[in-house]
């Protein structure tokens, strides 16, 4: 269950974890491709994306730790929380699947990420706005790249089209969570820190719709959405497996300097 939000700082902490955990988990997933991409340029691009996401994680979770004020830094938050304390969107947790699914997931996330970061540029919290500024430059490049790839693979061969359609069908139910607001979001809106997630949906659908059309793919009609990642109520089964890898060293050798 979501931690009860009792003060502004608690909500801010939750918000920052949502940002940082999603970039952390997606960065982890993308980094799993290392050395296995279909073509060298993609190996480079995937490593670069993962690198940016991990860098953003350091900033978001670093600030989360500061706000929390209990002496946890970004590493402690990343490596010493169990899954239920993670606030990653479910979309970031799903397995890579084939290259097409990985790139479709990236595109669906990048589109949300770039719009959301765009709003955060005007955050009332300067620390948030500063991180958003750095991140949004990186993410607009991610989006450009993932959109181009989705278009190429959607519009490529019969096989690639079918694979991309499958990927979209699999991933679409994980998109809705990005736009489902709750008490934390309401507190952030009130404080002028972050926008109401629901308010981004129209822009998102327009952007995603345009790219999918170019990719000769149809925007799915279903609005069913899996939920439970952003509030930690019910993650995917995949997250726990990610953490066994991610956290093993820190768990096995606690308190060391690396």
């Amino acid at each position, binding site marked *: 269950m979501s931690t009860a939000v009792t003060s502004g700082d608690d909500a801010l902490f939750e918000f920052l974890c949502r940002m940082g955990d999603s970039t952390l988990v997606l960065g*982890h997933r993308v980094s799993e491709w290392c050395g296995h991409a279909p073509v060298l340029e993609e190996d480079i691009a995937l490593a670069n994306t*993962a*690198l940016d996401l991990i860098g953003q994680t350091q900033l978001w979770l670093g600030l989360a730790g500061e706000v929390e004020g209990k002496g946890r830094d970004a590493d402690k938050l990343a490596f010493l929380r169990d899954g239920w304390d993670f606030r990653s969107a479910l979309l970031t947790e799903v397995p890579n699947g084939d290259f097409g699914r990985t790139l479709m997931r990236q595109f669906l996330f990048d589109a949300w990420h770039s719009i959301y970061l765009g709003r955060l540029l005007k955050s009332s919290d300067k620390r948030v706005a500063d991180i958003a500024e750095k991140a949004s430059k990186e993410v607009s490049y991610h989006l450009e790249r993932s959109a181009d790839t989705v278009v190429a693979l959607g519009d490529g061969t019969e096989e690639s089209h079918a694979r991309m359609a499958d990927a979209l069908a699999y991933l679409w139910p994980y998109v809705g969570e990005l736009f489902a607001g709750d008490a934390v979001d309401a507190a952030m809106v009130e404080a002028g820190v972050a926008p109401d997630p629901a308010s981004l949906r129209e822009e998102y659908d327009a952007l995603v719709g345009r790219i999918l059309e170019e990719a000769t793919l149809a925007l799915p009609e279903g609005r069913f959405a899996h939920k439970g990642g952003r509030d930690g109520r019910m993650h995917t089964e995949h997250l726990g497996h990610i953490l066994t890898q991610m956290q093993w060293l820190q768990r096995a050798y606690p308190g*060391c300097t*690396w």
Partner: protein
Amino acid sequence: MTEEERKFQAHVDANEKVEPKDWMPDDYRATLIRQIGQHAHSEIVGQLPEGNWITRAPTLERKAILLAKVQDEAGHGLYLYCAAETLGISRDELTEDLLSGKMKYSSIFNYPTLTWADIGAVGWLVDGAAIMNQVPLQRTSFGPYSRAMIRICKEESFHQRQGYDIMMKMAKGSEAQKRMAQDALNRLWFPSLMMFGPSDKESVHSAQSMAWKIKINTNDELRQKFVDQTVPQVEYLGLTVPDETLSWNEERGHYDFAEPDWGEFFDVLKGNGPCNTDRLSARQEAWAEGKWVRDAMMAHARKKSAAQVAAE
């Protein structure tokens, strides 16, 4: 020697660069293709042992540094394939030769990375040995190769420092970390020495490569230089070189050291290293499973350019 060969050798002797459009002996071309291709393949396969620890890196910063490093390696592969392509062979041809086993990659990548300290040791020793090999190649006679090497060496020395920094943290860390550092050194010391290749005292092949300035130093020279440079670093870390015969030779002004087990070297080269099968099959699978992606990208590019032509 033909007149062309004489002119070519004079050009090389004068330390002038050979450029792709220049005339060059067939063997020069073939040797370079093999050497540059093998080097490119090593960068690609070299992503795997390090990639093995990206998802398990102990801190976000270490994870980011390792990602950046692996990304650099893929980039190096790219420069080198481009350099090879100027010699008239395509990246796909080179890739097929790697996957069929016709071309090799550096045997060091057939050793496993078993603990986080191995990531430090790979940066420190393996990149260290690679730099030792590559620094002189910045002066190699073939222009594109020389220029690629200049770029690569700059990044590699950065990687080596990062690797040493990991080792430092481990060697000055907890008991378990120290043990990890020593264990990594124990396993990777001799394989690193092997990276310079067997003694080439009597190799005619090497003599020709040196005349062509494709090879600048002998394997033994470079190995000695590596040992001389590395032993004080080991001492600074408070670790022990796993070679009881190692000692400073005042007279030579160099360290005396034990030769690696060349039987093991040739075994690994033949395919019997701890990870040969896994490394090659990882690359084969990546290539096979990526076919639909490459095909689709090509098909899309064709459609796009056809649409462009139609629009003009």
